[in-house]
Structure formats: C-alpha cells, structure tokens
C-alpha cells in the first residue's frame, strides 16, 4: 500500500487517480499510523516552499517521514515534494528542508537566460544521467511535464536525470531509498505512469 502524504498542500486528485489507473492501492492520508504501515511513501506538493515546509513540521510529518526513511522505506517526492527533500531553499528568503538529500533549491530567475520564460511550463525530454529503477520502464529522451520556477542545485551526487532549459536543470534525484522528480509523473501521460509503476514495483 502506498501512502500519499496529505499535509494540506496541493491537490491530490490526479495522484490518487494515477495510482488507481496502474492498479496500485494508494491512500491520501495525514494519519501517522497509516503512513507507518504503508510500504511506500509519496511526498506531493504544489505552492510555496516556506508554507509547505512549515506545514510538514507543524503537522509532525517531517519527523515521521525522517523516521520511516531511515528504516529503509522508499519515498518519492514530487515537484515541491522533491524540493523539500533538500537541505534548504532560497525561495523568498532561506528556508530549511528535510535535509534527506544534499543540495539547495534556487530561483531560476537570474540563473537562466532572460530569454526563457519563468515559470518553466511544458514538456521536456528527460536526459537520463544514471541508471535507476525509476527509469526501468522508460527511455532516455521520453518527455515529461514540468511546472516550476525554482530548481534544485548543488546536488550533483544525487542527480539521476536532467532537462534542458537553457542549461541542464535537475529533473530527478535519488539517494538510497529516497528519490524525487521535479516534473509531474501524474501529468506526464504513459511515461509518467511507467515511472510510478517502476516506483511501486521496483523500489
């Protein structure tokens, strides 16, 4: 059973629907007991880093996530959920993340060509940098859907895929049983569903 961690950030409709579509049992929940019982965890998130990070801490979810991850449970962070895995974010100030992966979340503005639009919205080919179970059912160059204005930097060791938007931006990261994708697998058609399938079956 998959627990989609519900801490009051973002809309979980599409994530729940995509697990249903691949025949996996998934619950959106903020109940610590269900999260502890789950085989795997999804950390979703849309919106502002500071708000999400505060909600994770205040709800006690930050502590539970760290405990479950240290026991070896697989965790997939999606979009802002991936950014929260890092040590800190420079989104409107400086805010502490979960610190599960070394790296810093930075604004794209000023770091990519001013010719390019921010937010980065659309489909980009994935450039796979390292073999990883998440990619076992997709091919290098398959397109996935991004919506973001901030990106993970200083995380070279954990990068498993990038996407080119002026420069190569972090698209997916992994460290041991923790992984994350900046793009939205639940909005990336069959390619995205295959990434979620791989997370369920092969991690």
């Amino acid at each position: 059973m998959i627990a989609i961690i519900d801490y009051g950030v973002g809309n979980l409709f599409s994530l729940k629907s995509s697990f249903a579509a691949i025949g996996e049992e998934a619950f959106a929940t903020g109940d610590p007991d269900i999260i502890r019982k789950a085989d795997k965890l999804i950390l979703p998130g849309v919106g502002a880093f500071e708000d999400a990070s505060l909600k994770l801490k205040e709800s006690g979810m930050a502590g539970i996530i760290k405990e479950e991850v240290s026991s070896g449970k697989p965790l997939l962070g999606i979009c802002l959920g991936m950014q929260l895995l890092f040590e800190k974010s420079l989104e409107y100030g400086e805010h502490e993340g979960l610190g599960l992966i070394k790296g810093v979340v930075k604004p794209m503005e000023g770091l990519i060509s001013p010719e390019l639009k921010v937010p980065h919205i659309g489909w980009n080919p994935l450039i796979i940098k390292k073999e990883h179970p998440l990619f076992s059912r997709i091919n290098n160059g398959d397109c996935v859907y991004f919506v973001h204005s901030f990106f993970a930097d200083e995380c070279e060791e954990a990068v498993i895929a990038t996407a080119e938007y002026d420069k190569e931006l972090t698209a997916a990261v992994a460290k041991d049983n923790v992984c994350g994708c900046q793009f939205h697998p639940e909005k990336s058609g069959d390619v995205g569903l295959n990434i979620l399938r791989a997370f369920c079956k092969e991690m």
Partner: protein
Amino acid sequence: MITKRIIPCLDVRDGRVVKGVNFEGLRDVASPVDLAKYYSDEGADELVFYDITASAEGRALFTDILTEAAKNVFIPLTVGGGINSVADFDRVLKCGADKVSVNSGAIKDPDLVGKAARLYGDQCVVLSADIKRVEGKFMIFAKGGRENTGLEAIEWIKRCVGNGAGEVVVNSMDTDGVKQGFDLELLGKVCDAVSVPVIASGGAGCTEDFIKLFKTLPKVDAGLAASVFHFGEIKIPELKAAMAENGIPARLLKK
C-alpha cells in the same frame, strides 16, 4: 529543449462537446470523456475543457464529466467557462483540473486573477482573452465574444499578467473559425508585451498553419484548436511529425 504544445479545446454544453464557428451555430461532436482519452492517446500535450453551459444543471453535469475525464487522462487539464470567483476555481480544481482559465470573470472582477494567483499559484491561473479588431485597435470582448468591453487588448493582458496570470490564451475572433491561419500580427504583439507562456488560438485550418505559427513566432509556446481536431482535418501524430521535420521541438509518442 522545451517542446511546443498542441492543445485541443473541448467546448462542453450539457455534457457534450460542441464547436461553434465564430461562436455561432454550435454542432454536437462527441462525448467529452471519450474525446479526451482519444486525444491523450494521440499525443495531445494538454486539454482545455470549456464549459459553455448557462444552467445550474448543466454546470453540475460539467463537473461530473470533468471528474470522469481527470480520472482517465494523465496530461494537464485546463478548465474555463463560468469562472467568476475563487469558489469557481475551487470547484473545478477539486474535480481534477490543473489550471483554470478566466475570461469574462476577470473583466467583471479585476481582483479575481490576483486573488486566485495568491491562493493557487501563478501557474494555475490562465488568462483567456477574446480579441477583435475594432477601428484598427485590438479590443477585448466578453460574454463569449458578444460584448466589446472597451478594454485595449495588450494593456489588459499586461495588467492581468502583472496581477499573477501565469499563461495567456490569445483567441483572435477575427481568425477564429475561418481556417486561414493564426493571427500572427496580434500574437506577435502579445509575445512582445509579456514574459509568460502564450497560447495561440483561432484560425488553424491545416498542419502548415501550426508550422508557420511556430516558425514565425518562436516565442509562442502552444497552439490551440478545436474543430480541425474534432473532425480529423488535422491528425495530432501527423502534426507532431511535421513539426519535428521542420525543426520545431515536439513531443513525439513512441509506440
């Protein structure tokens, strides 16, 4: 390299897809859920569901259909039509919409774009603008294109983007339904004025119209159309292949 998006638009009334030519003479086409699934399988990059229902019953039917589509289609869904308040944003986002497009609602309540952007993020708020030339000026029309608001189009779009609209759909009423190509003059002016993604709408008649759009205006992010897709006059896999052949980045599905 980010790819150029191809977006079919489904106008929905009383649970069915319809398409008007110059907003008049609506014709029934198909089931919205079936059509959405079909387009997703064909390689559409995003779908727009436009609710043209006026009645409360029709609106409830629309949200049911949207929910059903969102359970079965895993590409971004934008919903528009009848969005007049933050409560309307909430209603369609709960049914699985990813973005919400506002048109007349933003004209009636100039704070709507800003309020929604603060609650749901800029990326969620799409400004949809129906634009027509009146005495040589581009003007914003409301109420499905029936009413000239007196607002100058470029100024209006800049103001809404400043308030937090994360994307702009530019629908040229002069080229809509005519199938002679997109309104490149208008689109060029909008691209020069704003730095958020611009979606071209109105006028696509054949594959070459999309090629010309993206070649002439590299800043345009996406092309939107309805009847040419619904009636099979343009097939999305062929359009994507033609884009790739012409050096336009396109998302191609591997079979």
